[in-house]
Each structure stands twice: as C-alpha cells, then as structure tokens.
C-alpha cells in the first residue's frame, strides 16, 4: 500500500455527522417535491369540489304542487281546437297567476317561476281533456323559493318554503330540462343543450379543417422537407402559432373572416375556423413528435425493399404514428372546446335560445355560455353557471382521459 495515500476515515464522527446531515437534506428535498405535487393536486381537488358543491344544485329544481281547476278559470280555450297559436293567445300567464293565488294564497304569485305557465300550456297540449277537470300540476318555483329550498335565501322566501313544506307541496327533483333546454332569461328554465350543440358544431368544423391540414403538414415537415429557408420559416411559424395568445386569433377572425370575407357573425363556421387555426399547430407538433417516434429502422426496412417515400409514409409511418397523432388531436380539440376569448370577438357572446341547425346558424358554445351566465343579474344563475361548468369539465376530463388512455396503450418502445 502506498504511503502518500491519505485514506479517508469514513467511520470518523465528523464524517458520520456529515453524512447524517446530507441524508437530512435529502429527506427535506424529497418532502418539498412531494409537497409540490400535493399542493398542485390539492388545488385541483379544491377547484373540482367547489364547482361540484355549487353546481350539483344546478341540476335540480324545486317544484310546487298546485291544484288547478281549469273549468273554474277564465280560459278562452276550445278543448277541441287546441293549437299552438290558440294556446299562445289564451292568456295563460294571467290564468296561472290567478290559479296559484287561489291555491296558495294572495302572496303566492311570486313563488312560482314567471314562466311557470308554460308547464300548464304543455299539460293542456298533451291532454286537452284536463280542461274539464281539476288536476294537480307541479309548477317550477321562482328563483328565490328555489334557492331558499336548496340552500338559504331571503327570510320571506324561507318563510314561504317553510309553509309550503309543511303543506307537503314542495318537491326538489332532477331538472332534466337543464340538459335539453337552451339559453333563457329565467334561471329555473335554462339549459345547456343549445350551447352544447353549438360547441359540437364548432368542434366539427375545427376538426374537419385542422386535422387533415395538421397531419399533412406534420408529414411534410418531418418526412420530406429539406432544410432550407422556407421550411425554417414554416417551422418557426408553427411553433409560434402554437403559442400565440388565443385572443389574437379572435382579432384575426374578426378582421379576416367577418370584416373581409363577410362570413356570418356568431356562426359555428367562423368559430370553428378561428379555433382550427389555433388547433392546427398543436396537431402539427403532436403529429411530428408521433412521426419522429416511429423508429427509422421501419423506414429503412420499407425503403430497403423498394417502397417509394410516399409509400413508406402512407403504408408504415402514418399507421404507426396514428395513436400519437390522435392523442395530440384530442388534446388540441379539448383545448379548443374550452376556449372562450377568441369567440367573444366574433359575436358568440349572444343570447341564442334556438339551438343552431347548421354551421352557419347563430350559435354560442359552452364556455361562452358560462361566461354569459356568470354575468347574469339573477342570482339563480350562479348555480347554473357552476352546473354548466361541471358539464364542460366532464367533457374535457373525458377527452383528456381518452387521450391519456390512448397514449398509455400505444406508447411503445422499439
């Protein structure tokens, strides 16, 4: 053994202490990491729970059972000639008010929703014979009563609820209308179907435009493009577009699609086109990564037996890259589905109570609907806003879930 060597005394106290210190700092560092993960997850949980807490009530509504004696009410309706127009002219709102007053007391007119008469209308339409009878109908409660019944409301409303409850007239049930109705002005009657359909149409346009173009671009850049100034510019543009603030796309849509091309305002078509410009770069980038991850040995193999470059891509590379491309597409679409700002610029911030029938009809989308409702005067909209958020989140989580599933399932190592 050589003399000049200074053997380290690993067993000395100083060294032991030092090592203990190092391990302590290791533990602290690890705990900090865990804390970071936990905090992030806790925030998410908090967000989701607070939305659920506020929003689940939005899926229910309170109804008041009211006895209606049609024969005794001043209805100008001929039971044998019930038409939509006749019903519209029949002064049902007044009748409803009178009926409620009679059944529940003088101050009760305020207890039912202003649009409660539509329930009567639909009941008569469904069965004109009830005009000759006395029936019990469940009328939607007014917002104040609804709130008081589900959580807490004003003292007057609470008193009314207590009275109704005692009489056993109050029921709270799932409000299917929330899923099938469209925008409205009475929070007890609104639904998300219109906005949902708008989102669907917008997404269709977005997908139809951005997917083929995105995939074609990814293929071109990854497989064929020779490095030159043009491909450099393309590459920079794409990476940049993927990060351009979405509101800028709104400005673009406003100037080009609306003011220059004169496409219809508020339409799913324009919304979809605007979002497609935003989504395309996301698909390109995901597509390129997916294509890049197809091992070169596959290309070599195909080229080596005489496949042309186009055949190599369409027979081998694209099929193998497809799951990756789909994952990227779903993520891009999910982002587009949640996007609001650019759509505000192109006229989707609108009251649209008729679900759009096509891509050129006026439409709004779920996130814009949420934005609109969050701005409503009536406090009944608070829980509706949260409920709409839940619907949107369920969709987004489902899309993300599918993307993650695809990624895990097809993630392969060659």
């Amino acid at each position, binding site marked *: 053994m050589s003399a000049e060597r200074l053997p380290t005394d690993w067993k000395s106290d100083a060294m032991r202490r030092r090592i203990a210190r190092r391990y302590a700092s290791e533990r602290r560092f690890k705990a900090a990491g865990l804390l970071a993960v936990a905090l992030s997850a806790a925030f998410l949980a908090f967000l989701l729970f607070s939305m659920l807490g506020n929003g689940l009530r939005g899926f229910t509504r309170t109804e008041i059972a009211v006895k209606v004696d049609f024969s005794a009410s001043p209805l100008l309706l001929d039971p044998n000639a019930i038409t939509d127009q006749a019903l519209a002219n029949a002064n049902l709102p007044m009748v409803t008010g009178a009926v409620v007053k009679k059944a529940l007391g003088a101050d009760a007119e305020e207890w039912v929703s202003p649009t409660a008469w539509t329930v009567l209308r639909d009941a008569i339409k469904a069965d004109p014979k009830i005009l000759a009878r006395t029936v019990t109908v469940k009328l939607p409660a007014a917002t104040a009563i609804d709130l008081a019944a589900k959580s807490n409301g*004003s003292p007057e409303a609470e008193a009314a609820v207590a009275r109704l409850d005692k009489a056993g007239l109050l029921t709270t049930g799932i409000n299917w209308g929330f899923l099938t109705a469209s925008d409205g002005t009475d929070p007890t009657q609104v639904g998300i179907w219109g906005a949902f359909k708008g989102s669907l149409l917008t997404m269709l346009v977005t997908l139809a435009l951005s997917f083929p173009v995105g995939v074609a671009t990814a293929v071109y850049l990854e497989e064929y493009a020779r490095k030159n100034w043009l491909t450099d510019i393309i590459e920079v543009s794409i990476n940049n577009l993927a990060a351009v603030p979405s509101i800028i796309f709104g400005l673009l849509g406003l100037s080009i699609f609306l003011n220059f091309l004169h496409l219809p305002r508020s339409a799913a078509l324009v919304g979809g086109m605007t979002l497609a410009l935003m989504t395309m770069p996301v698909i390109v980038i995901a597509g390129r990564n997916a294509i890049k991850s197809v091992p070169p040995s596959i290309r070599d193999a195909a080229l080596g037996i005489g496949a042309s470059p186009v055949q190599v891509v369409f027979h081998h590379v694209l099929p193998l890259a497809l799951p990756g491309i789909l994952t990227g597409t779903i993520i891009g679409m999910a982002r587009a589905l949640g996007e609001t700002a650019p759509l505000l610029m192109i006229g989707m911030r609108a009251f649209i*109570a008729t679900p759009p029938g096509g891509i050129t009809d006026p439409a709004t989308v779920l996130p814009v609907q949420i934005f609109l409702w969050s701005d409503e005067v009536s406090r009944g909209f608070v829980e509706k806003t949260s409920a709409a958020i839940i619907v949107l989140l369920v969709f987004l989580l489902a899309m993300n879930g599918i993307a993650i599933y695809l990624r895990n399932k097809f993630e392969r190592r060659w």
Partner: protein
Amino acid sequence: GQQSGGGAGGTRDQIRAVGSSTVYPFATAIAEMFVQGNPGMKSPIVESTGTGGGMKLFCAGVGAQHPDIADASRRMKKSEYEDCRKNGVKDIIEIQIGVDGLAFAESKNGPGLKLTPKIVYEALAANPYGKGPNKAQSWKDVDPSLPATPISVFGPPSTSGTRDSLAELILTKGCETDPAMEALKKKNEDEFKATCTRIREDGKYVDSGENDNLIVQKLGANPNALGVFGYSFLEENKDTLKDVSINGVEATYETVSTGQYPGARPLFIYVKKAHMQAIPGLQAYLNTFAANWDPNGALTKRGMVAAPEGVRKASAETVKSLAVLDGSQLK
C-alpha cells in the same frame, strides 16, 4: 354553390339585435316572450356588444347579414347616424323602451351616505372645477357632514355606456353648480366636458368590469365602498345592498321612473325600417316590447323602470306607425 362573397346573400328567419349590455336582459326577456307568444318563430339572437359596438354593426348596412335592431343605453349619436346613412341605412326607427336608473348603493351595513351630484362630482372628478388634481381622501374631505370613511367607488369602466350616463347625469350636474363652469361651457365646450366628466384615476374610483355581480359581491365585503350600477342590480340584491339617496331622493322604482332620482337615463332600441318587411316577426317583436313596458309589465319585474306615461304613448305610436327618426335632432 354559386354564391359570391360580398353583397347581400343568404336568408334569415331570425331577428338579430346587437348592442347595450344594459338593455340585453330586457331584450332577451322580450325575445323569450316573443317566442312563447308566436309559436313556430325562431328565437331572436341578442348580442351584447355594448352600445357603441352595436351601433357600429347596426350601421354597417342593410341586408340579411346586418342586424335589425340596435339596443342602446343612450341616444344615437349624430356621428353614428351619419355613418348609418353613408352605408345605406336610411330609415331608422327610434323607440324608447324604458328608463334605467343609475343607482348608487352600499352594503346593508354601510354608513348610510347621503349624496348630491355636487358631492359625487367633487369626490370623483379627476380635476374638480379645473383647480388641479383631486385630493379628497375621505367623504368628510368633500363635505364635513359626511362620515370620515375613505372614498372608494366601484363603477362602470370607461368603455361602457353606463359610464357615459354617470358622466352626463351626475357629474356634469354637480359640476355645473359652479358658475365658473357655466361660463367655461360657453367659452370652451371641450374643456368643459373634460373638466366635468373626467374621473380620477388614483384608485379611489375602481373600474369594475362588465360583471355587475362582482360589484355586488365586493360591496357586501366592503361596507365602506360605494357602487354605481344599473337599478336592476339594486333591485335584485335588495337583501344585501341598500340605496344611497341623491339630493335626498331615494332610488326607488317611483323616483326613478318619474325622473326625480337624478340617475335616470332612457333606454332605446333602433330598428331598420328596411328590414320590417323582410325579417319575419320583427313587427311582432316590437309589439311584444310595447305590450310589456308598462309599470306593471314583465320588464319592470326584471328591473327595468318604465318610462313616463307620455313617452310610453309616443313609443307605442312609433311602433305602430314606424315613424322614422329625424337625424337633425341628434347631437
């Protein structure tokens, strides 16, 4: 398709309205009633773009791709009218649908301020009476009779029509109490306007977005703050807010509708006469408006204040006769 871009194209079987966010809740309410009263009709589209933005779209031309109605929380401006004419929108029908109260409110636990336009002006102006930057920190600085709570006002942002109303209905009134200002008005209209309507930007007045619900919330949280917003919000939130009297007048339905309460401004809709024929249901939509703007009509239930009887009569007449606006009265 052989359809070319530009020009008029496409058909429309829905009414389109654009404009004021203040009128938006009333226009949508009418839209709903219109559909219920006219089965088979499609629901009108109401866009909330702000009065000016709406005017811009409205005046862009005649045809299916341009809106039929502009909602406005102020009268059309002369410049807007001229723009309309330039683009071929010649015959415009002006209908006042009601009144909006510009309400001042505070939290239920607030100090119970009593204000006048003069006090408001002196508290909020950027440059009161042109005498240099506003130094008032508390209400007491403005008027010794008021409590020494700091000035903190949440109000409409400079981009909204409600802000214009605040400037016109309250600030200018307060400003004009000073004779020097009256003189200035004659001498230099622009400077008068600036002195009397410009609001301080040192944080005492907080621009508070479009979302009036947030203002309501903030007031609840901060008893010393004052909020300025449409009367309908006060009405809806009576349980947490109370009104602040101006000139000793409380903001109640009556005082606003009679114009006693100073913060009252008219609400309008503007309709293109050229569209009356081509857009199905447009006349019926206007009729629905007319049927619901009475003091005990559906619109007042939603927080609108009915216009005085005379105005209502005149508006109803316009709906019937479709009389065209005379641009020369506009400013």
